[in-house]
């Protein structure tokens, strides 16, 4: 049975304090002799590398990008939650903990989530001290906003670029350690395997993406901070380079994979325009506060939106969910849009989109504004003009972004939106100390499964990344490292390094020598279509079984007809991509297996067989209150282990929006 190593001696709200008071320490002289590998330099990786470097460990940090500052944490828009209660509106550590557990639909571990809520306040202090320019009020104090339907204002932000500012803060802290000689940075390096010696993670094999050469690195411990795997769907809001390779290699070396099927699909993204589409762009969820979502009442209606009269429009969210209307939670809004498009009511050239309309909001705000300015008999044109000004004030930057991408003016015509893959709650299984099932191998941030259950709340991803890196791993690693102080650095000439490097080289050669006809992109697109159609917003047993056999066929085709141009020993982005897609194909199969065994609907995971008569998600706590943790047993073979979830403080209740 899985042991999460949660301190049992004290109640929930005291566990982290107790842990910190009792975990083992490593003295400064010994820290200087201990080497740590950090793979990935987003919020989790950069903050971990900086914090561990400050403590005196010898850190080596790796990223595949040209600079650590470009990790995809940078793209987070909205903000970061913290239980500061600066607004005096009743927030507390307990409320943040409770909201996160409930938002995750009772599929996260209580102790980890409580710790996250506790350290959230330290994160804001640390970031401000580093010079992160958060938004402020005129009195000079920090500004907060509400986010994702919580009842308190606990989100700290820096315009729509919070992720960027937090990442730059962590990046600069890490670069300071580089200057001090505590961190050595390896950019344009991709980790391709973990090196195991005597059952412990002792290093990694990397490909230097500029020269194409394989390189070996030793570490007393290895930290994987490599983000999410949403790109398994081909199209997602992730960056082009985001991939599963690092954690997948670790998985195949013995790290179990937790809840792989838990994926978050965000309802308001700019829709696909054609087969050329390479990625999807998120439009902030705040747009649903004022916009109305609709499709034509007639199937396949090709008229322009402005030519469709009011009575021929179906405001389907308002019709289906009169209580919440356009403000239903992310998963519900996403599934409802899919239902309309699948039924033939979609709009735009692709017919895979719905309208988000601001015409009513413009008129409403215009009337209020006219009233404020005492214009009693303002005509329609004046009201619209005034209304547009108000909307511009509130959402101007988002409207500009939409216009840049689509070429359409959202003040004049309704925006077209469609759901897109955004975040993966699943990841490597870790215990309370963030260690995977491989001794010495840790996993931080989005790459692990631990804190968000079946659904992540807005503004919580940044919080978790920095919590893991700045405030959790510096403590929990000591428990392992204190037993390693007598372990001398192992030479990379050790046979384990040689064997692992050879296996990596063999696989690269195998990929290059297929010399088939089809491109990496074409396989990735095929995989994405299978995943999106059968393991996306709604899943059923039959579809998942089909997906598994389709993916197995795709894998055969990939390994027999792939074409990669160029050479091994040079910069070769197609080869980099081929390795990542090969891993995505294997992951896709596991995600479908996981979705198949979880015959309940919870959070972002909706099984069509498990719904109420009204079509709402039906969670089954009696059967499925566990973390599914998968052990790799060989090609296409996995064994399921379950970590039972016990809710001692936050007792499970139904989420309802009607």
């Amino acid at each position, binding site marked *: 049975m899985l042991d999460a190593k949660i301190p049992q001696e004290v109640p929930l709200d005291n566990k982290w304090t107790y842990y910190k008071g009792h975990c083992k320490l490593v003295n400064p002289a010994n820290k200087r002799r201990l080497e740590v590998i950090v793979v990935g330099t987003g919020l989790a990786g950069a903050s971990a590398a900086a914090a561990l470097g400050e403590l005196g460990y010898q850190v080596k940090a790796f990223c595949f990008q040209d600079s650590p500052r470009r990790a995809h944490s940078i*793209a987070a828009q909205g903000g970061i939650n913290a239980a500061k209660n600066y607004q005096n509106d009743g927030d507390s550590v307990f409320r943040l903990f409770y909201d996160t557990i409930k938002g995750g639909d009772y599929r996260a571990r209580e102790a980890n989530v409580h710790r996250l809520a506790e350290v959230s306040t330290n994160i804001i202090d640390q970031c401000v001290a580093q010079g992160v*320019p958060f938004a*402020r009020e005129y009195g000079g104090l920090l500004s907060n906003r509400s986010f994702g339907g919580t009842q308190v204002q606990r989100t700290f932000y820096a315009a729509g670029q919070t992720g*960027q500012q937090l990442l730059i803060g962590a990046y600069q802290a890490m670069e300071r350690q580089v200057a001090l000689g505590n961190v050595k940075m390896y950019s344009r390096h991709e980790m391709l395997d973990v090196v195991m010696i005597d059952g412990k993670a002792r290093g990694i094999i990397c490909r230097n993406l500029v020269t194409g050469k394989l390189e070996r690195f030793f570490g007393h411990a290895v930290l994987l901070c490599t983000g999410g795997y949403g790109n398994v769907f081909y199209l997602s809001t992730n960056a082009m380079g985001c991939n599963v390779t690092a954690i997948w290699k670790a998985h195949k070396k013995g790290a179990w994979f937790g809840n792989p099927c838990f994926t978050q699909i965000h309802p308001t993204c700019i829709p696909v325009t054609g087969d050329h589409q*390479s990625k999807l762009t998120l439009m902030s969820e705040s747009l649903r506060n004022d916009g109305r979502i609709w499709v034509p009442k007639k199937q396949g209606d090709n008229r322009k939106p402005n030519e469709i009269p009011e009575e021929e429009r179906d405001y389907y969210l308002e019709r289906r969910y009169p209580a919440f209307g356009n403000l239903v939670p992310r998963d519900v809004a996403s599934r409802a849009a899919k239902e309309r498009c699948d039924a033939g009511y979609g709009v735009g050239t692709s017919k895979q989109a719905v309208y988000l309309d601001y015409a009513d909001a413009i008129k409403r705000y215009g009337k209020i504004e006219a009233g404020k300015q005492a214009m009693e008999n303002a005509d329609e044109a004046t009201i619209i003009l005034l209304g547009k000004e108000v909307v511009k004030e509130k959402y101007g930057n988002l409207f500009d972004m939409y216009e*840049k991408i689509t070429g359409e*003016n959202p003040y004049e015509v309704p925006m077209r939106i469609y759901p897109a893959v955004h975040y993966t709650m699943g990841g490597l299984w870790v215990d309370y100390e963030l260690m995977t099932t491989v001794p010495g191998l840790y996993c931080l941030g989005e790459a692990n499964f631990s804190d968000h259950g079946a659904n992540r709340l807005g503004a919580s991803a940044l919080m978790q990344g920095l919590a893991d890196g700045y405030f959790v791993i510096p403590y929990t690693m000591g428990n392992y490292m204190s037993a390693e102080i007598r372990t001398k650095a192992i030479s990379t000439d050790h046979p384990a390094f040689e064997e692992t490097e050879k296996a990596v080289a063999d696989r690269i050669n195998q990929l290059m020598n297929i010399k088939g006809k089809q491109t990496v992109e074409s396989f990735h697109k095929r995989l994405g279509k299978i995943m999106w159609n059968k393991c996306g917003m709604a899943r059923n047993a039959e579809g998942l079984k089909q997906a598994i056999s389709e993916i197995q066929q795709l894998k055969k085709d990939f390994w027999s007809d792939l074409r990669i141009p160029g050479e091994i020993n040079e910069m070769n982005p197609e080869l980099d991509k081929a390795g990542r897609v090969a891993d995505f194909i294997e992951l896709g199969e596991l995600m479908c297996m996981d979705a198949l065994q979880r015959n309940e609907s919870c959070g972002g995971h909706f099984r069509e067989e498990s719904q109420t008569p009204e079509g709402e998600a039906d969670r089954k706590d009696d059967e499925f209150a566990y973390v599914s943790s998968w052990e790799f047993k060989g090609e296409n073979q996995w064994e399921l282990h379950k970590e039972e979830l016990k809710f001692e403080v936050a007792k499970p209740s139904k989420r309802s929006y009607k």
Partner: protein
Amino acid sequence: MTPLGGTGGFMEHKNINVKLKVWKQKNSQTAGRFETYEAKNISTEMSFLEMFDVLNEELISDGKEPITFDHDCREGICGTCSMYINGRPHGPWHATTTCQLHMRAFNDGETIVVEPWRANAFPVIKDLMVDRTAFERIIQAGGFISVNTGNAVDANAIPVDKDKADASFAAAACIGCGACVAACKNSSAMLFVSAKVTHLALLPQGEPERRTRALNMVAQMDKEGFGGCTNTGACEAVCPKEISIDNIARLNKEYLAAGLLSEK
């Protein structure tokens, strides 16, 4: 040019053909040359990089070498994409990164010239991809506040003037893409360095290291081989994040004050 050049409201999309003259260079050791490609049937809905994707797919299928270029987030924030398009970093649209540039910016039959950033401090790695690690070393020289994790006081303990906080944020919006260097006739990195110096100098937390930071970052910039600033403003004109040239004036002031007052 603006993204929506007077079309107002609904956009009609069409397909166009363009000719591309693209810089090809095997690696930093070999000489490069322009290669000509035809990109046919390109939807004006595509982004510029998606047009490259389509072209690369054709090249690979035809057994030819694809074009190598840097890109990642494709939403204008990571700063990875870096192309000189028709004589301008990031192409014709104001305040827009290459990845956000769309094909409706171009006409049917147009020839588009694409080059990498050109600067001694940014050597070409392959084709359109350059090495920008010089920027990393400039940050290492002082682009940070020296505070170890766990040392921080409460975030609201030190109030910060809102105007200063906003100005600091505006400078911190720099994405480190290097367009400013590419646009400058001297390949100066002054806009990049000044944005970082401004970001930290305007905050009370950045005050203790204010002087050494300006001196050390400028010294490193010179060491990396970036040129001097002659205030032509080309950097500001091409910056996708609209970082103001006022930051350079501030850097000059900071540098001068540091030189006069520093005891180190």
